[in-house]
Every structure is written in structure tokens, then in C-alpha cells.
């Protein structure tokens, strides 16, 4: 079986963006084993 997540999140700063708005980034790699509750991204 397979689970696919599709979600909106803040995108990384564009070069000209000044304020410190949050930006989402994944903290996994393809092929990683992962378990329920472990961070996919922050």
C-alpha cells in the first residue's frame, strides 16, 4: 500500500524577500525508512 500527502506550506524565501516569514523544507531523502510521528519536514 502507499500513502500520498499533498499539502500547502510556506515556500522558501525569494531572494528579495526581507521579512522572516517561515519557510517549509523537507528533512528526509528518497529511500529513507520513516516511522509514524517522525518529522517529514519543518
Amino acid at each position, binding site marked *: *500500500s502507499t500513502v500520498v500527502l499533498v499539502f500547502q506550506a510556506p515556500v522558501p524565501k525569494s531572494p528579495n524577500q526581507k521579512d522572516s516569514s517561515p519557510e517549509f523544507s523537507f528533512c528526509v531523502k528518497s529511500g529513507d525508512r520513516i516511522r509514524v*510521528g517522525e518529522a517529514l519536514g519543518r
Partner: protein
Amino acid sequence: NTDSQGNPFLVPGATVATILMLGALHARRMYNDKKIEEARERGIELEFQPDAKAAFLRLLPLRSISRLWGTLTSVELPVWLRPHVYKGWARAFHANLEESALPLEQYASLQEFFVRTLKEGSRPIDPDPQCLVSPVDGTILRFGELKGVRPMIDQVKGFSYSVSSLLGASSFLPLIAEGNVHEESSEEEKAPTEKSKKTWWRISLASPKVQDPVSVSPMRGLFYCVIYLRPGDYHRVHSPVDWNVLTRRHFSGHLFPLNERATRTIRNLYVENERVVLEGRWQGGFMAIAAIGATNVGSIKLLIEPELRTNLPIRKLMHSEQPEERVYEPEGIGMMLKKGNEVAAFNMG
């Protein structure tokens, strides 16, 4: 004397030959898996190569096979046999028996064992309020950011499927397709018109880098992550964030296998297979989870909607009363789920 007893070597010989053949097949499969693993480690992207086997699979009655598999695995086993069967399963599919919530003797059938819960504390939820956690145990197949007015996810190199086909005619995806999406301005949020109430939000994807000058919300992009569950993995689905589930969609579809080989040879696998999609909203905006079944794991149970049935026989599928789409009450607020809450479970057959 020998004639009257028949050939004494026939049965043992046939048994040995069968075991040797199964052993050879298993060894060949393990060798193939190892080759694929090494290829991935060398960063070699597996190409999409439809072949005769994939075409043949389309001819098989996969749903009936899946339901037969479910019937077989729901047979109650004698108590003394249970540990042996489940240990054999664990060895073949690298399942971790230490984490099972119950002693092995208490799982009456392989199907019950397959959807086992885990001991308290086995899956601590990352406490960072800014993080999105994995909803399942499994292997990260692909992830990234989706761009453009028709976002596509790669099945493998050389073949991709569209997000709107995967999730269905989602309330916002057609807006992307038409390219006429934009960030809801605070004026519109303050006095929501009928249209904005209906679509309850709109997003700027056509040009994600353009931040709406009026709204204070950060720029937003659309992301995805595909996680594959092996037969030996823990098969319950949890909530990745705190969110409100507004809509549930069920696509009956097919039940092709979802293993590595199938992903490389069967077209539109994730969009054709039976699946349940939950869609809603979290602090970051839109959120959707698609649970996709396979031949051996055809059933998807929703804890938030226990009456939903998947992997129905073809004749029942034709006359099923259950709605293919359900909006959870109260409309626009739906069902609140906390990060880590159990949401659904995959089951055999």
C-alpha cells in the same frame, strides 16, 4: 512388492522439487531486489518500462483475487499455530514483533495480526509545533514541491500522474487547472461571498512567488510526499498535523500491486488503484492524504467513518449506496484531528 506400493520416492521427490523451486524463486526475487537497491544507492533512477506482465495483470480479476486473499487470511488459526505463522511472516517481511501490543497468541488470524496496534509509546510524535510528521511507517519514495497550473507527481522517471486525478475534482485543483487562482484578500475573507464560502479558500499557485500585497500570510507552495508501506510494516495511518478534515472521497478503481516492479511497469498506478482521499485544511493551508490500496492490501478502514467499505465485490460496487464523496459536518469546519491521532488502517484483502 515395489510395484504394489507404487514408487516410494514420488511424493518426497515432488515435495523436495517444489521446495527447491520456491527457494530458487525467492532467491531470484531477493537478488532482483538487491540489484534495485544498489541501483538506487548509485542514484540510478529507475525508468518506466511497461511490459507484457503489466499488460497481463490488467486481464486478471484482481479484485476477486484480493477478496479471496482476504478470506484466506481471516481464517481463525489454532492458538498453538499462531506464533509460528506470525514469526514466519515477520521473518519473510522484516516485521518487528517486539512492538506488537498483544502477545502473538491473541491475534486470531493473519488479518488481525496485519492490522495490529503497537505498544504504547512505540511511535513518539515529534513535539515541534512547526513540523509535519509521517502519517505511516514506510519508505520515502518521492517528495518535493509541485509547480505550474497542472501539478504532476513522478511515478518513476519517464512517467508522471496529475495531482488533480489523484485527489479527484478537489475544490481547489480545478482552480489551478484554469489558472485563475489567487490569494484570498483580507477584504474577501472579512466579507466572504457565496463563491469564496463555497470554495472556502483559494490559493496562488499560478505564480506562487507573488505574495498577495494585502494578506499577511506567507507565500505558499504546494508540496507532496509518497510513502510506500511494505507488507511487514505497521499499517495504521495517523494524522501528520493538527488539521480539519472537510471532505472524504472514495475511488473504487482497480487493485494492481503497488510494489517496486509494478511502479515501474504499470501506467497511472496510483490514479487507477482503489483509494480513499481525505482533504482539509491545516495552519499551512490545504492538506490532503490519499491512502492507496493494492491487491494484497485492498481494504482501507477509516476510524472517522467506520461505515465506509472499500474493496467491495464488483456487483456490490455497482449498487453501493455509500457516497463517493462525503462532506464532514459541520460544513467548512469538518472533523478536527490532532497530530498523531489514528485516522485509518490498511487491511488485507
